[in-house]
């Protein structure tokens, strides 16, 4: 399968960061999960106090595994992609929701495929996967945290200690990578942020 994914191929004009927006996808993600009994969620980082508190107060159990920091620490190591994801060692069908934020933007094709397959395994049937993708290259390769505030407002906080490569993917490439999921909703904001909400198929929750 050929993807239209190239690092900065058509999007080399660096843009200053969008400063914040009210997230429709996040609201739907949270509202859906709050309706589930003893919902469990996973956040792949970067670690953010506001987000952890937000989800810990709304979900039965909120898991955090900061893959951004792991990727940064292992950036210069020649690791097999499988080893890179050993930190996500959670049981199958464990979560009702996973927040990937913009992790896919910082991964090569093989790693994205591996991550998506892991997410599929870790999610229960009807579980939700939320991801964000920038439409244009941010002005620096510093990773950002999407900080949840009041009324599902999301603000961006740069993480100077985290610098990772950035890859652009068209909507079609992203949805192709997540073809095992059903797309629930997607939004493109004027700030250039794209949000996607995917659902693991299934008649009822595992």
């Amino acid at each position, binding site marked *: 399968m050929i993807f239209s994914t190239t690092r900065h191929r058509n999007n080399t004009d660096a843009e200053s960061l969008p400063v*914040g927006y009210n997230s429709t996808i996040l609201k739907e993600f949270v509202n859906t999960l709050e309706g589930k009994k003893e919902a469990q969620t996973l956040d792949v980082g970067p*670690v953010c106090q*506001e987000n952890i508190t937000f989800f810990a107060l709304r979900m039965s159990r909120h898991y955090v595994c*900061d893959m951004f920091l792991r990727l940064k620490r292992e950036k210069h190591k020649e690791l097999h992609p499988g080893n890179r994801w050993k930190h996500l060692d959670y049981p199958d069908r464990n979560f009702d929701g996973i927040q990937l934020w913009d992790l896919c933007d910082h991964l090569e094709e093989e790693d994205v495929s591996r991550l998506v397959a892991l997410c599929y395994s870790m999610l229960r049937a009807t579980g939700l996967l939320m991801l964000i993708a920038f439409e244009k290259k941010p002005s620096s390769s510093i990773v950002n945290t999407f*900080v949840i505030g009041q009324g599902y407002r999301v*603000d961006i*906080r740069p993480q100077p200690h985290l610098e990772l490569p950035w890859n652009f993917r068209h909507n079609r490439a992203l949805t192709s990578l997540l073809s095992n999921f059903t797309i629930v909703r997607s939004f493109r904001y004027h700030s250039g942020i794209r949000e996607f909400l995917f659902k693991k198929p299934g008649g009822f929750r595992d």
Partner: protein
Amino acid sequence: MLKRTKKDENNTPFSVGDTVEEKPTPSSLSPTVRQERDTSEEKTTIGERISIEGSIRGEANLVIEGAMKGTIEMGKHNFTIGPNGRVDGEIHAQDVSINGQFKGTIKALGKVAVTQKADFNGEIKAKSFSVEDGAYFKGVVELDRESHKNPAATETPRGPSSPETAKQSVTPPNDVKMEK
């Protein structure tokens, strides 16, 4: 400062804070100094070159700069892992501060704070929680919902993203829905 109790040698935990150092009388100290002294006197530190395997019970605040494997029960006292400290086990305390390495479970009556230098891998049950950007964190967080009756009102983003930049936010009416 540690003192071993005289019961069963294998099962008896260490007791922390039983020994009282000789100190100046409160009347000889200014209020500020006295307060600082009082705080420091209540704290027991296990140094960098000390390793403990077993259990610790305490009636004073405890700081671990060394290594500890086992159970730590501090009741209503605070527990801190220093920047070079390493703890593998279970912690019960009032407030817990993690500045070093931790693997295990924390049950805090108050707050758990994980600082930037920390490497945390475990489970937290607490009334409130804080973690600094840059900390390595892999874990599960369960917070006491009763003490956060209005969570939305208490969550204010920090850092450069707010509140000044909030004025420039992209508002929903401008958003374009792509697919459904």
